[in-house]
C-alpha cells in the first residue's frame, strides 16, 4: 500500500506501477464500497475508538469525566473476581468449542458423505440451519421445562426409578450453560465444515482408497486436513459467540456463574460506563488475539 500511495503522490517516479491511475472500474469500486465503509465506520469503528478513550475516563454515580486515568484498568485487572470471570469465560469457550467441533464435524460429515441425493442433502441441511434463524432466547428458555427440577428429564428418570430424587444440577448450573451454548452455537460449526467438505474432490478419496488406504487413514490423512479451513471458521464463530455471551450464562446458570460480558452488562446497568469500557477493551484484545491466531491457519477470502 505504501507503494501505491507513493505512485499517486509522485506520479512521475514510478509511472509503470499502474496502467490506468483511476479507471472507471476502480472509481466504481470506491463508490460501491462507500455505504459499507460509512456504516461500519460510524457504527463499529467509531464506537470502539470512543470506548478506548472512555476507558481512561473518570466517573461517579451520575456522570463521566473526560480525563486520562488508569483507575478503570487498575480496578478491573487488580481484582481477583475479574480474573476468575475471565478464566470462567475461557473455560466455557474451550468446553463449548470442543463439543461443537466434535458434533459439528460428524453432522457435516454425515451430510456431505453419507447422504447421496442432492435434494435430501439440501433438505437435511436446511433442517439444521432453520433454528439459527429463530430467536436465541426462546431456544434457550425452552430448556427450562426440560431440565428443571420438575422438568421432563427429572420426572421421567424418577418415574422410571433410575433416581429417587430429582437431579439438582441439570438446570441453573454450569452444565446447563454449556448445554444451552452447544445447542445454540453448533450450527455455526456445521455450516462452514459442511461447506468445505462439499468442496473436497471425491476423486481424492477414491485415489486414496485405490492406493490401499484404510477408512481411518482416509479420514485422518485426506478428509481432516482438507476440512481444517471450515473448522477454523466455525471455531472463530463459536469462540467469539461464547466470549460475548451474557444471556445464556445469566439465564441458564440462574446467576450462579459469571462471564465477562455479563460483568460488563452489570457495570452498564450501574452506569459505570468507563469501567465497562475498560473491560470491553480487554475483552476485545483477547478476542482479536484469538481470532488473529486462528486466521493464521486459514485465509477466509479463499474459503468463500
Amino acid at each position, binding site marked *: *500500500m505504501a507503494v*501505491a500511495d507513493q505512485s499517486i503522490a509522485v506520479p512521475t517516479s514510478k509511472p509503470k506501477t499502474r496502467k490506468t491511475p483511476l479507471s472507471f*472500474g*476502480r472509481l*466504481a*469500486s*470506491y463508490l*460501491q*464500497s462507500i*455505504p*459499507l465503509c460509512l*456504516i*461500519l465506520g*460510524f*457504527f463499529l*469503528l*467509531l*464506537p*470502539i475508538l*470512543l470506548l478506548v478513550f472512555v476507558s481512561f475516563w473518570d466517573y461517579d454515580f451520575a456522570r463521566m469525566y473526560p480525563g486520562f486515568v488508569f483507575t478503570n484498568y487498575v480496578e478491573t485487572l487488580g481484582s481477583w473476581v475479574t480474573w476468575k470471570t475471565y478464566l470462567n469465560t475461557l473455560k466455557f469457550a474451550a468446553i463449548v468449542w470442543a463439543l461443537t467441533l466434535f*458434533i459439528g464435524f*460428524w*453432522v457435516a*460429515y*454425515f*451430510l456431505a458423505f453419507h447422504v447421496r441425493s442432492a435434494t435430501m442433502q439440501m433438505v437435511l441441511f*436446511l*433442517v*439444521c440451519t*432453520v*433454528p439459527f*434463524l*429463530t*430467536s*436465541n*432466547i*426462546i*431456544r434457550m*428458555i*425452552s430448556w427450562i*421445562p*426440560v431440565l428443571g427440577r420438575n422438568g*421432563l428429564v427429572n*420426572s421421567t428418570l424418577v418415574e422410571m426409578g433410575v433416581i429417587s430424587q430429582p437431579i439438582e444440577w441439570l438446570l441453573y448450573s454450569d452444565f446447563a450453560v454449556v448445554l444451552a451454548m452447544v*445447542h445454540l452455537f453448533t450450527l455455526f460449526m456445521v455450516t462452514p465444515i459442511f461447506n468445505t467438505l462439499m468442496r473436497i474432490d471425491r476423486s481424492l478419496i477414491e485415489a486414496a482408497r485405490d492406493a490401499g488406504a484404510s477408512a481411518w487413514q482416509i479420514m485422518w490423512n485426506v478428509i481432516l486436513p482438507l476440512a481444517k479451513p471450515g473448522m477454523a471458521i466455525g471455531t472463530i464463530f463459536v469462540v*467469539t459467540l461464547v*466470549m*460475548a455471551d*451474557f*444471556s445464556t450464562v445469566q439465564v441458564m446458570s440462574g446467576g450462579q456463574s459469571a462471564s465477562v*460480558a455479563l460483568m*460488563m*452488562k452489570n457495570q*452498564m446497568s450501574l452506569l459505570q460506563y468507563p469501567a465497562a469500557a475498560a473491560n*470491553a477493551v480487554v*475483552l476485545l484484545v483477547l*478476542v*482479536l488475539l484469538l481470532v488473529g491466531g486462528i486466521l493464521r491457519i486459514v485465509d477466509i*477470502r479463499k474459503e*468463500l
Partner: protein
Amino acid sequence: MQQREKRPFSFYILAAFFALFVLFLYGPMSAIFILSFQGPNGGLTFPLNGVSVHWFGNLFEKQAVGDFGASFSRSLLLGLMVMVSTVLVALLAGLAFRRRFLGGTPLFYLTIASLVVPSIIVSLGIGVLFQQIGFRPAWWTSGFGAHLTWTLPFGVLIMFAVFNRFSPSYEEAARDLGASPWQTFRHVLLPMIAPSLIGVGLFGFSLSYDEFARTLMTAGTFNTLPLEIYGMTTNVTTPVLYALGTVTTLFSFAVILLTLGIILLIRRKRARA
C-alpha cells in the same frame, strides 16, 4: 434402476447421531410449543393441566406481558429496514470487491471484525457514542445501526461467495452484444444472483428480528420484541412466555418458508424459460 451400493456400517451410526442431533435441536423447542397450550391453571412445566389457548389470549392483554403488539411491530419494521439496507449495501460491496481497489483489504477485515467483535461491546460503544454526541438512542437510529453491524458481514460474505463462483463470461457476452453497463447489470447479473439476494434478505431480516444483545443499549425508550422477551424471562412465571415464544417462532418459520418458496418459484420459472 441401478443396484444401490450397500450402506457401510458407519452410515447407520452417523445417521443415528444425526437423528439425535436433530432431536437435540428441535426437542426443547417442541416442549414449549406443547406447554404453550397449557390449561389456565397449568404451570411452567409438564404435565399439561388441561389443554387451552388461554395463554395465547393472554398475550393480547396488556397487563400480562407489557405491550406485545407494539414491540412486535417495532421489531417487524426494524427487521424490514435492516433487510432492505443489508441487501443493498451487501450487493454494492460485493460488486466493489470484484475488482481490487485501494483500501479493499482493510475494509474486508473491518467487515470480519464486525462479525467477531462481541455484541455487547457494539451495544455499549454505540450507546456511549450517541450519549456523547447528544443524540437520543432509538431503535430506528442507533438500534438500526447496531443491527447492521451484525447483518452486513453475513450479507457481504454471502455476496463474496456468490461472486467468487460467478463467471464473468455472461457479462462479457452481454457487452459484446452491445449492452450498456446498466443493461448488463439489470438484465444479466441481477436475475442470475436474485435468489442469493433473497437469501441475504432472509438473513438480514431474521438476524435483526431475533437480535437483542446489540439492542440492549441502543433501543432507547421503546423495547423491541426480543428485549421484551428477555425482560420476561426474569419476571414472568406463567406459560404466557411460552405462548409468546411459540408465536414468534412460528412467525420466523413462516418467514423462512415464504422465502424458500419464493426462491423455488424463481428457480422453476427460470428452468421453464
